[in-house]
């Protein structure tokens, strides 16, 4: 009865899967250790000593605060724009069939399907051709373009599960289109939008490749980190910032997971 033993995984598979997961997680945990090291100049392992002084040093660095503030503002605006565009697009695509519908879903996915460097340099060359100077808004423009896809993916998945007859029932009962949207459609898609919005925020907060092409002299937090990685000043400060960035992006991801876990998938990622 060979088939009876199929319920528990073979040892080799267990080990391989466990090693794979460890490979995915151990490096990230390391950052947390290095944020506490007393060694300033190099990457010595094991750390010669542990200290919390780098948190205080980081706290007192105005350049970190400036970069953080820019990142938060950019992510907020990009998320807001992505929410509006993504919701409109997903509502149109999921409710009706029309000519060019496939093209539109491709169009939304394209900014993340193509490598980020293409989006970045395309925007930069367009700014150069049209004499648009680099500013806060050129960064937002780039980020919003690829954030649309996460809102779109989450909203489309929810629209597909929402029955159209509810909207018809609402109209039959005398509600106008706006009332139906406010009282029927919106409550149904709210958590999907919230999840999409949080993912978009995390995506924008972390984005570096497109930003290097659209930012000019300004530094978002990832750009600041990139500078520090190439020309380090105080390595532990970079690790403290890295830890903060991790926490700021992971919390929305976890929240988005709990909001959409029954049925929807958190799709649409990439650089």
């Amino acid at each position, binding site marked *: 009865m060979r088939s009876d033993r199929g319920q528990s995984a073979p040892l080799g598979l267990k080990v391989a*899967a466990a090693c794979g997961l460890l490979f995915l997680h151990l490096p990230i945990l390391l950052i947390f250790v290095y944020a506490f090291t007393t060694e300033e100049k*190099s990457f010595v392992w094991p750390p010669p000593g542990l200290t919390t002084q780098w948190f205080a040093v980081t706290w007192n660095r105005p350049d970190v605060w400036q970069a953080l503030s820019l990142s938060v503002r950019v992510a907020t605006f990009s998320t807001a724009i992505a929410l509006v565009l993504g919701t409109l697009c997903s509502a149109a695509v999921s409710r*009706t069939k029309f000519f060019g519908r496939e093209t*539109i879903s491709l169009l939304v996915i394209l*900014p993340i399907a193509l490598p980020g460097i293409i989006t970045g340099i*395309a925007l930069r060359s367009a700014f150069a051709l049209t004499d648009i100077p680099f500013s806060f808004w050129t960064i937002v423009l780039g980020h919003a373009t690829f954030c649309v896809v996460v809102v779109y993916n989450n909203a489309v998945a929810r629209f597909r599960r929402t029955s159209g007859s509810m909207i018809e029932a609402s109209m039959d009962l005398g509600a106008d289109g*706006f009332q139906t949207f406010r009282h029927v459609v919106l409550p149904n898609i709210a958590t999907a939008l919230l999840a999409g919005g949080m993912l978009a925020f995390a995506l924008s907060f972390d984005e570096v490749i497109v930003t290097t092409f659209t930012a000019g002299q300004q530094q978002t937090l990832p750009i600041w980190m990139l500078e520090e990685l190439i020309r380090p000043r105080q390595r532990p400060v970079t690790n403290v910032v890295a830890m903060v960035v991790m926490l700021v992006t992971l919390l929305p991801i976890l929240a988005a*997971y709990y909001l959409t876990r029954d049925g929807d998938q958190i799709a649409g990622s990439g650089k």
Partner: protein
Amino acid sequence: MPRAAAPAILPGSGGLRGALSDLFWRKPKVLLLLMLLPPLLWLGVVYIGSLFALLAQSFFSIDEYSGLINREFTLKTYGDLFQAANLDIILRTVTMAALVTLASAIVALPIAYYAARYARGRWKALFYLGIMLPLWSSYLVKICAWKLILAKEGILTWLLGKLHLQWLLDAWLSLPVVGGNSLSVSFTGTFIVFVYVWLPFMILPVQAALERVPGNLVEASSDLGASPGQTFRNVLFPLALPGIVAGSIFTFSLTLGDYIIPQIIGTSRLFIGQAVYAQQGTAGNIPLAAAFTVVPIIIMGFYLWGAKRMGAFDAL
């Protein structure tokens, strides 16, 4: 006492809001158009417009003496791509992308298979988060972590020292192409970090493909006397293949375009992304940078076409 029956058709709700609402109900196309207009304007004009601006510039050329851009259409810049140095860059990037894709598939398979077939309930959620968290955690932080691991004085050297395997690392580093001063300035390092960063993009579609394989198919295979290896080769692998191809779209495309990883962890020999960045920045040669970006676009065009024919899009 007969009451007046309610009119079969209610009067319009009146006001601008009512009028609009009625209009949208009667003419859904108007509503559709209004809904599509903002996203189409944004993505169509801003994004596709920029792509075309980029494409157009790849047909310009740069004047070698003045460094000014000559805005006349020519194929000269594309000719420059075929210079030995540039061809080298393209070949190196494509080879790396292929190797990274292959390695990702090998590492991803057991994780995806375990998650799809054996993980249940709470473990399933744990596996899912265990793949999603690294996928979504900060790209730069991940590279930063690997710098700490691969650096000469870093954790890997320490670990190998403890295991008395330092000679193995030294032997590997003394090899011509893959080696270097330390792992953090070698192609081996670049390769490991690429695999690490893109791995979740491979696991998810493979897991999705394997989840559709009914368990009794595997049981039937072993009942009929196949060894686990034969079952894998003849049953599981062919069914997982569309998922692998779907995942490879990401691993391949992302490696083709990335320039941060080889810049931070790698040698001075360039990848396509770095060449693009250098050409548009320090060299000021936007046409050549644009022509370089057309390379991954074309490669990915063929890749997507091939993947679609293999049915990989259903596994996405």
